[in-house]
């Protein structure tokens, strides 16, 4: 059963996604950051879908459970494509966008296969595909985090100076890392009731950071990456 606080956090999350979507469209980022805008739109739409299923079938229903996990995997894949889109921005000047797309697809397929193999070889039986989907979602957060880290390294190496792109990548890095850490904690059987509220707040980070970037950082703003790395 969801508490009023859960509903409030859910509502806030959906509102923030809608705001981020409007900010991105107003900043004329629809074509330039298509995968990102698509992710925000999908996240908002699936949030509404989840609410509809919750009110019609209930929180403990199979329908809600399936819809939640499958839509979560779908959103994680969308976010993965968003990351690939950001990769394309950075590597476009090198003419390597095509290879990035190919590499991204191969990695996604590899992660899906490994996730399935992990579930198939585990002791637990039944619901193989559903458990594989949940596993894929978890693994993609970790893969996404590593790929964002590699992208950030490439941006520093190539002295990337587009402030908007930097902030979009960094916000995504924070999000992926936070979720990967959260899943790792869960796998360590670390139970804490308040944790689900923390996860709600974590999910708000991305729309808030992206909305701020589209609202306040113009496309032509420039910043030296050297200023963002702590002195060594």
């Amino acid at each position, binding site marked *: 059963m969801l508490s009023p606080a859960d509903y409030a956090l859910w509502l806030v999350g959906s509102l923030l996604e809608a705001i981020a979507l409007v900010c991105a469209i107003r900043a004329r980022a629809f074509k330039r950051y298509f995968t990102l805008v698509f992710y925000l739109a999908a996240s908002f739409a699936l949030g509404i879908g989840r609410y509809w299923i919750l009110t019609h079938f209930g929180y403990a229903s199979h329908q809600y459970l399936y819809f939640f996990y499958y839509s979560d995997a779908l959103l994680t894949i969308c976010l993965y494509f968003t990351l690939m889109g950001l990769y394309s921005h950075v590597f476009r000047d090198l003419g390597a966008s095509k290879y990035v797309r190919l590499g991204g697809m191969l990695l996604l397929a590899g992660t899906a296969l490994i996730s399935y193999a992990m579930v198939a070889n585990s002791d637990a039986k039944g619901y193989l595909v559903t458990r594989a989907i949940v596993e894929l979602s978890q693994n993609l957060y*970790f893969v996404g*985090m590593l790929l*964002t*880290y590699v992208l*950030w390294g490439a941006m520093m190496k190539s002295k990337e100076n587009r*402030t908007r792109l*930097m*902030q979009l990548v*960094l*916000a995504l*890095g*924070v999000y992926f*890392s*936070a979720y*990967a*850490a959260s*899943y*790792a*904690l869960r*796998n*360590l059987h670390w139970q804490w009731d308040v944790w689900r509220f923390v996860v709600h707040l974590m999910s708000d980070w991305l729309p*808030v*950071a992206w909305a*701020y970037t589209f*609202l*306040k*950082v113009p496309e032509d*703003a420039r*910043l030296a990456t050297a*200023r*963002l*790395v*702590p*002195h060594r």
Partner: protein
Amino acid sequence: MIAAIILVISTATLLQFFVSYARSVIAASSKHELSPQAREVSGVLNHDVRGEEFVRLLQLIGLCPVPGGDTNRVRAVSGYFRLLGMAKTLMGRVAPALLRWVETERGSCAYFAAVTLDRRIAFSRELMAQQMSNRI
């Protein structure tokens, strides 16, 4: 075991991304020159601000009307400031070079707060001017 390794790696990258993100927000405000009004109110005369000023400046920011859009930035930088405070306490005695860097960073946070205060003062003045013109 694997989950523990993932947790450590994720926490380390989370910290790195968060620090870089906070620095990108601070760097965007470092070129801003403070207005005479903000200098008078904040007592900050140039870019050399002590980290200890941050909390006081944050309190002054809290007194101004919110123009919208900067609350989350202030929160992110406040989080970064707390993180630096922890680094200062934990590592300060062991690594003096790190301590100097932490102090510079805390100063940058304080300058960011002064710039935010400047923007909010400008917003308040605009708001007041609008109200005055509406009354007339």
